[in-house]
């Protein structure tokens, strides 16, 4: 239902353009979930915004398209775009403390989405939505202002707003980053449950690989604006191929192993306005060899999985 094809995009800056997405291709089937993992600056949030065609003014798409049910979202008229955003596609932003309007009651804000997408305000629908996102005492929440609610409650409200238009695709851009660890798990389980009960597709963006371990069907790992590895979550976790994915996984703490130190990836992610030549990962790669510093590897498919690395010329 969602197909991203060869999407390339940069942000205009005074001197050098900042490369945000380089030749990204992804697809997501109806009712399934895709996790996108990457460090800060890897382009994952830009990707989430690009799907909604909701990019800042200084963003420039140089190539590629995004198809939603066969239609390119970059070709939508402003009117269609408005109807589509919040309708077929819902989005949950990172920070529930700032993504609600502080001067309106939260019930009013959810109701407003109904007015725009479902033809009219309806208090009982809002209360049902609050119930669905497991907010206790919906009546009281309806009349509350954002500052009267906890972080977890606010994120549930934001989720209710995203669900109000009955989306077929839900985009969650680091929805738990700003929350307590215990609340994080509740929200994740809620998201997972809602996806199943509503049969939505879910695009889940995070920098925390640990969150996605068993919650998404497929996983895409991003580095410096491009997808370095992609495949079914289970396969990726048990048999990571790209050295970056391997590095990420080995830096996760495990309960079953006794190690005095966690292994870390040496170095820092590259400056997206001055990417190294060749493979963007080569200065940090433990398995660097000849072509890495001169030639940028393209993603190659092996069955359901794809890897962008010179190590894999033939099927491994």
């Amino acid at each position, binding site marked *: 239902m969602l197909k991203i094809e060869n999407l390339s995009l940069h942000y205009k800056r005074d001197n050098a353009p900042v490369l945000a997405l380089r030749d990204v291709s992804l697809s997501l089937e109806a009712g399934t979930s895709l996790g996108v993992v990457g460090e800060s600056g890897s382009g994952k949030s830009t990707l989430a915004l690009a799907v*909604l065609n*909701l990019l800042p*003014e200084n963003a420039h798409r140089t190539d590629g398209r995004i198809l939603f049910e066969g239609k390119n979202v970059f070709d939508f008229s402003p009117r269609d*775009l*408005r*109807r*589509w*955003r*919040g*309708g077929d596609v*819902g*989005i949950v*932003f990172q*920070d529930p403390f*700032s*993504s*609600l*309007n*502080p*001067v*309106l009651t939260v019930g009013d804000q959810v109701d*407003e*989405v109904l007015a*725009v*997408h479902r033809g009219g305000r309806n208090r009982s629908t809002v209360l049902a939505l609050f119930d669905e996102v497991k907010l206790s005492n919906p009546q009281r929440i309806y009349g509350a202002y954002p500052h009267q609610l906890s972080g977890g409650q606010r994120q549930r409200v*934001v989720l209710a*707003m*995203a669900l109000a*238009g009955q989306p077929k695709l839900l985009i969650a851009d680091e929805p738990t980053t700003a929350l307590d660890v215990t609340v994080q798990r509740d929200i994740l389980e809620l998201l997972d449950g809602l996806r199943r009960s509503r049969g939505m597709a879910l695009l889940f963006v995070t920098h925390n690989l640990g969150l996605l371990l068993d919650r998404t069907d497929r996983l895409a790992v991003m580095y410096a604006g491009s997808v370095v590895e992609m495949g079914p979550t289970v396969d990726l976790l048990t048999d990571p191929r790209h050295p970056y994915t391997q590095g990420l996984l080995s830096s996760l703490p495990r309960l079953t192993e006794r190690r005095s130190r966690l292994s870390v990836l040496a170095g820092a992610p590259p400056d997206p306005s001055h990417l190294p030549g060749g493979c963007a990962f080569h200065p940090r790669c433990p398995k660097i060899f000849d072509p890495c510093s001169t030639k940028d590897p393209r993603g190659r498919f092996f069955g359901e999985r794809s890897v962008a690395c010179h190590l894999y010329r033939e099927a491994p």
Partner: protein
Amino acid sequence: MALLGAGVIGGLILTATVGPVLMKQNPFEQNLLERLSPPSSVHWMGTDDLGRDVLARVVQGSRVSLTVGLLAAGLSVFLGTGIGLFAGFRGRGWDAVTMRVLDVLLCFPTIFLILMVIAFLEPSVLTVMLVIGLTSWMGLARLVRGETLVLKERDFIWAARGLGLSETRILLVHLLPHLLSPVMVAATLGVGGAVLTESALSFLGLGVQPPNPSWGSLLSAGKDYIHMAWWLTVFPGLALFATVLGFNLLGEGFRDVLDPRMER
């Protein structure tokens, strides 16, 4: 202090609305036998060169001052907020053009702009009000534009776009309420300024025309007799002073209460 300002304004509004009804003296009635008589128990503020009661004329003048002040400030707030919102929210070329035009307008001294416009129009309460409104919105437009530039990048505005709300709705429902406090402060201070400008114009004879009294024209008429009849200038001057002070105090009171960045 803000309460004092509110009190003064409250009294003024009361005076302007019911004052002329309660007054025994007619502000237009001449009595040549009692020309230029000093304040007494009959004429609390004395009489002018045609024997008219000064208190009655000052009270009548409060109507003009207040009407012009409120309406002119209202017009200026409407224009300033609208234009500022438009420039800030649209951004890019629209913003650049609007702001340059504004820069040009700000280069002219306000009184010069006003005189220019008055030169083409018949002086009357309506023209004075329009002219003051049309020449005083620039500062507020700048302020609103600046606030809008910051506000429109806030997460909840992005979230509203992401939910498919229209630009009009985002502007009116989500952006405008956040501008309420700077606009309210500017509006209150603006009334004081507009009252003062109206008096200046009337003083120059370009505002409200005789025999209709305005504080500015009362001052102007009184200045010829200032050596022998101080009451002709002192009382309208005091009324003007109190009014402008009242609005300024109230405006600053609003700012103290509404602006969280200011220390109380």
